[in-house]
């Protein structure tokens, strides 16, 4: 099956998932992001690349923080940004997802940033655009269901590269609810594509997908074992809903076994960095002393995120 993210020339036309992208494209995005970091450090934080272009933020699932970083990134590229918060009730009025896309294309949209609760929604959009011959409209996935959050995966890689330089010697542990996490899936694909030799998943059985080992991941249920000598710890957010089903008994019990405390962090390499996609649940997955401590790079992740999103949008919009 042809990769729906690449155009006829093998260039990135949509960013739907990290999975399936060759290492060269990931590296290109990270390298380009470095240049955009410099732009974000200037007085005038703007370049004219997407001047006159319209970026539509299509958020079917609420997220002020992700939407804001995309908006900032698009504006720094001089694009016009339109925010559409489409919740379930307006689509219940009868307009299908694809009808919405057709309408927005008629309003001369150039790029859609899409967040949706259903895995695969951005693919449906990309396929539809291809079918109607609009190869001048691009899709960037801002998170689809549990499947992928590729810009987060990429900014996580940028962060790791910034602090650790070389991927080929690292041990990286991802801790928490990987079953429901699109960030985890994108991180795993990015880490393995960039050549990280040891990727670990740490969590209780109920929160890990059954076939994780097929993705090249070592599974640990004991966090003390799993954190030994790791260079990077990526903590995932534990959502409240998980405590309502039969997946977990309580936040307290979770924190005791899988929360990152200073004691547990001490088992990792002394230079280990601690990452988190945000927003954090202090006292549930991460102890405040760690979140505010010297090894946490959680705030820099946010800054890197804007540069990475600028890089992604400028690359796809030009192809």
């Amino acid at each position, binding site marked *: 099956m042809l990769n729906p993210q690449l155009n006829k020339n093998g260039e990135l036309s949509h960013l739907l998932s990290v*999975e399936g992208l060759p290492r060269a494209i990931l590296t290109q995005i990270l390298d380009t992001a470095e240049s955009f970091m410099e732009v974000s450090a200037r007085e005038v934080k703007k370049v004219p690349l997407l001047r006159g272009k319209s970026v539509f933020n299509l958020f079917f699932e609420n997220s002020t923080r992700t939407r804001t970083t995309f908006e900032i990134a698009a504006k720094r590229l001089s694009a016009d940004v339109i925010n559409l918060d489409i919740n379930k009730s307006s689509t219940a009025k009868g307009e299908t997802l694809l009808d919405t896309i057709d309408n927005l294309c008629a309003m001369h949209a150039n790029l859609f940033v899409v967040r949706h609760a*259903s895995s*695969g929604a951005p693919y*449906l959009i990309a396929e539809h655009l291809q079918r109607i011959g609009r190869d001048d409209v691009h899709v960037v996935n801002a998170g689809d269901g*549990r499947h992928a959050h590729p810009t987060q995966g990429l900014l996580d890689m940028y962060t790791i590269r910034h602090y650790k330089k070389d991927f080929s010697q690292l041990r990286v542990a991802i801790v928490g609810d990987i079953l429901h996490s699109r960030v985890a*899936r994108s991180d795993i694909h990015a880490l393995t594509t960039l050549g990280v030799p040891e990727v670990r998943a740490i969590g209780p059985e109920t929160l890990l997908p059954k*076939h994780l080992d*097929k*993705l090249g991941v070592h599974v640990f249920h004991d966090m003390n074992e799993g954190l030994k000598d790791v260079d990077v710890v990526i903590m995932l957010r534990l959502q409240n809903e998980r405590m309502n089903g039969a997946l977990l008994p309580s936040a307290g019990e979770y924190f005791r076994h899988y929360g990152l405390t200073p004691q547990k962090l001490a088992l990792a390499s002394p230079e280990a960095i601690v990452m988190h996609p945000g927003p954090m649940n202090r006292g549930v997955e991460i102890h405040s002393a760690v979140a505010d401590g010297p090894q946490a790079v959680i705030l820099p992740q946010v800054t890197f995120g804007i540069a990475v999103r600028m890089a992604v949008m400028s690359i796809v919009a030009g192809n």
Partner: protein
Amino acid sequence: MNIEIKNGRVIDPKNGVDLKTSLYIVDGKVVGLGQAPAGFVAEQTIDATGKIVSPGFIDLGARLNSIEAELAAAVAGGVTSVVVPPDADPPLDEPELADRLVHRGAEIGKARVLPLGALTLGLNGERLAELAGLKKAGCVAFSQANKPVVDTEALLRAMEYAATFDFPVWLQAQDHWLSRNGIAHDGEVASRLGLAVIPVAAETIAIATIIQLVRDTGCRVHLTRLSSAAGVNLVKQAVDEGLPVSFDIGVHHLLLTENDIGFFNPHARFSPPLRAQSDRQALSSAAANGLAAICSDHTPVGADDKLLPFGEAKPGATGLEVLLPLTLKWAEAAGVSLADALGRITWAPARILGLPGGDLSVGAVADIAIFDPEATWQLTPEALKSRGKNSPWLGYVLTGKVNTTLVGGRVVFQD
């Protein structure tokens, strides 16, 4: 009307017939093969040179959303009898509705309509529907379609009641709790793509429950659309034990697996879900060994309900017009003879229904499908008579095309 079908290769799987010969029809019944009966004068002659003459196909599961279009699609696909699940809107839980459906089918005069009556009112798994009344109105068995009976006590009582009258009960073995949030098989693909899962346990737990209730009630049960290797094993054991249990397999599950989801293709969304290679293999063996019948599970879905993100798309695919080519495709890959393959969609379904049909014995009703097993055609929306254009095979070239279909000795489809 006296009809002679000549020069065709007549295959009658039930009677072990497979030879190039003529077939004679008088007054809607098969009167003989080979030699014309004494005094026979053909009023109509059908030349079946290069074609297979087969009993018309009996499809154990086809939804007739717009009845005229779908019955036309049925005979275009060589299907002469369709068993209709009771989950139309409104559900078929009143004798009057069954009456109307049978009547309408007869009026249209294409494929025969064999309705399944709802086991419970509204299919809600609580109160029994009027089974005897529904039977009288033409229902051939009772079913919950895809809706599980959550309350095991209610299921027990329903099966007891059905057993009283020796009514067969058709059930989809899918545990409500383990399947209610899932959209795909609990396998590698779902792990990778982040899809909510329906584990195999959803099927095996339901099968085990049903089998125990069969033991206790003596109710005859037909399990529809099995999907897993473990499920097949359980049913096999029950059959070996001598319990009155049978099962069928949807033709798409013989050919496709979870891998066909690809990039979230909504046409690969089925209920039960497409499972792993090993499951497909077990289903294929079961069909090859004659343990199970094959059906199309025809489910027309409009584009508005299908072209959606995978988890929101309505499950199911168009089936009536692809039943033949897909069955032939499966048979070739599985090394099953043409006669055996045809048996799975003719005689085996008839046996499960406990009705005559599905064969070309002398005296049998002349429901016949004449088809070219080598003819190729491309599956496009225009090529289908069904309103359901939803198919994972769209754009593919399929092999096997029906040329002529007769129901009760009357030509109801001519290509």
